[in-house]
């Protein structure tokens, strides 16, 4: 296959001990040690108060990462197409619905129900930013970041317009945590464009590969990469943090990995 090419204009990141992309860039380039701390979820100020009260962890994660990337890119959120990809959606909400349905009452809250859709974060993103372009909501289990990257790049290449990619995962409460032990919230957002903007961060050339995925040299960060599907993006982020050209292999759907050629911009 020929490579899918896009220009990276902005990055947003939120994870354990990683408050934002500048912090993560210092950690991933080795200039600052990673200090593990629970992911801090900011209140989604962009939402009207009535909507803000209704949002759970996944929506807060996705909005925070998305807004940081859009601001970093100097882009207008209202005009961007968007791809949201998550391995599991809102686990807390799912747990409460299942408990209610297992009870004798079965009285679901309407808000819980409409928040149960996998595209809840995508829907709240539109309400928060006024974005009316195409917006997708994907899942590919552990390959959800890679699937989102491919969807975003095929949109950039065929529609010739900029796309915001947001990949995010949050912790399930017990008992679902026992079946799917994602340890904490992690959200990554990239603004990808078909041509270089005013200050692009890098050019990305993406293709499928069967070579093994890159791992991280820091054992704690490597553990994070393996534990949270959205954190499978960390080798790409580490390359970007080093501001150097190079090729990284991202986990995707067996037998495939995604090879990303990073041509960093000065």
């Amino acid at each position, binding site marked *: *296959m*020929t490579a*899918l090419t896009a220009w990276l204009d902005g990055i947003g990141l939120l994870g354990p001990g990683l408050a934002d992309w500048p912090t993560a860039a210092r950690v991933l380039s080795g200039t600052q040690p990673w200090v593990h701390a629970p992911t801090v979820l900011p209140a989604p100020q962009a939402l009207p108060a009535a909507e803000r009260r209704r949002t759970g962890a996944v929506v807060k994660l996705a909005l925070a990462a998305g807004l940081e990337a859009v601001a970093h890119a100097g882009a207008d959120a*209202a005009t961007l197409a968007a791809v949201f990809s998550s*391995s*599991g*959606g809102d686990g807390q909400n*799912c747990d409460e619905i*299942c*408990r209610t*349905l*297992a009870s004798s009452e*079965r*009285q*679901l809250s*309407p808000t819980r*129900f*409409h928040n*149960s*859709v*996998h*595209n*809840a974060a*995508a*829907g*709240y993103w*539109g*309400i928060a*930013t*006024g*974005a*009316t*372009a*195409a*917006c*997708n*909501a*994907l*899942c*590919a*289990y552990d*390959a*959800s970041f890679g*699937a989102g990257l*491919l*969807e975003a790049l*095929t949109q950039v*290449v*065929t529609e010739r317009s900029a796309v915001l990619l947001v990949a995010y995962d949050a912790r399930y409460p*017990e*008992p*679902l945590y*026992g*079946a*799917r032990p994602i340890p904490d919230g992690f959200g990554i957002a990239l603004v990808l464009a078909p041509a270089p903007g005013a200050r692009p961060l890098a050019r990305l050339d993406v293709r*499928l590969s069967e070579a093994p995925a890159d791992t991280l040299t820091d054992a704690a960060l490597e553990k994070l990469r393996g534990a949270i599907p959205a954190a499978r993006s960390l080798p790409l982020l580490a390359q970007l943090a080093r501001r150097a050209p190079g090729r990284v292999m991202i986990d*995707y*759907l067996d*037998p*495939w990995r995604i090879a990303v050629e990073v041509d960093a911009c000065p």
Partner: protein
Amino acid sequence: MTPLALASYTATSALGRGLEPTLAALQAQRSGLAPCAFETVRLAMCVGEVPGVDAAPLPAALAAFECRNNRLALLALGQDGFAAAVARSAARHGAARIGVFVGTSTSGILETEQAFRRLDPVSGALPPDFRYRGAHNTFSLGAFVQRALGLRGPAVVISSACSSSAKVFASAQRAIAAGLIEAAVVGGVDSLCLTTLYGFHSLQLVSTGPCRPFDVARDGISIGEGAAFALLERPAAAAGEDSVLLLGTGESSDAYHMSSPPPDGRGAAAAMRQALAAAGLGAADIDYINLHGTATPSNDAAEAIAVGAVLGAAVPASSTKGATGHALGAAGALEAVICALALRHGFMPGGVNTAAVDAALPVSYLLGNRDARLRRVMSNSFGFGGSNCSLVLARAGAHA
């Protein structure tokens, strides 16, 4: 966009298993809706249940995916020679060059709902037979379809509520156009579960009787279930004139509310306009519209305004949800296949259950079937979160 062929397609719903009973039910204007007797649910509503889904377990090789949703998927994949057509395409292009793009809203959540009734009384843990990856997870359907068909290319589940399996056509055509894959299995599968039955009931969006789209007295949806698939490929030179093409897709977001559309239908209109533009067509080129037509008062009103604004009030239109129920994440693919049947067999399906069309809605709503050599049709799918998708499909002979 460059047109793609629906090289093979199939649908299973409350109307029957496969194309033949689906076509017969549409031609007889028969509804598959019946009072809800699903599982332990005792709510005053009608549902479109597929009979016999739970009659047989999945084959041993697929046992890791055991759940009602995947049983329904396998039932549908076995109809109309669909799996064999995919196998021929895989032999031609390579199994790694065929993508899987499928939509579902609730995947195997029914089995999770049931497992929560069996939590360990001491530890609170889920029972040992609980399957997160193979059943609960939203991607379960994508992994299952890929495995069942022996494919090894990119695979993804789109889960944008009721637009899910319309949007798969858009993503798949982009992946083909970008050179990521040569062909794609697209489709949607959603099955009855307590979350949607009690959830829509909590929103007071469900009719107690069979749903009546666009009726002046419409009072809510009837939930259905279904599975529909299509094989998207570049058109073969030798394709017959009755073969069906995907000409255009359009996607938009309402940016308005999680569970209701803006009353002026502007998001729906934007998706319809984009689908026309992608197809290189004007309003006069559309012969029939398969409406989203859920039968809630506000959804149908907003869609009617959008249709009036984009295509005008004269294009014959109907919702087939009175026949199938609202198959949610499977609705887009199910209704795309119904459009393919309409194109191939030369008829427009009239909307069933509807008695008196709401005269306030600017739409030429069909109550009876009408024979017509259709050239091009539009299918609308709109979902929670303000996610809109419109498709334009055509008969190859009319498009040449």
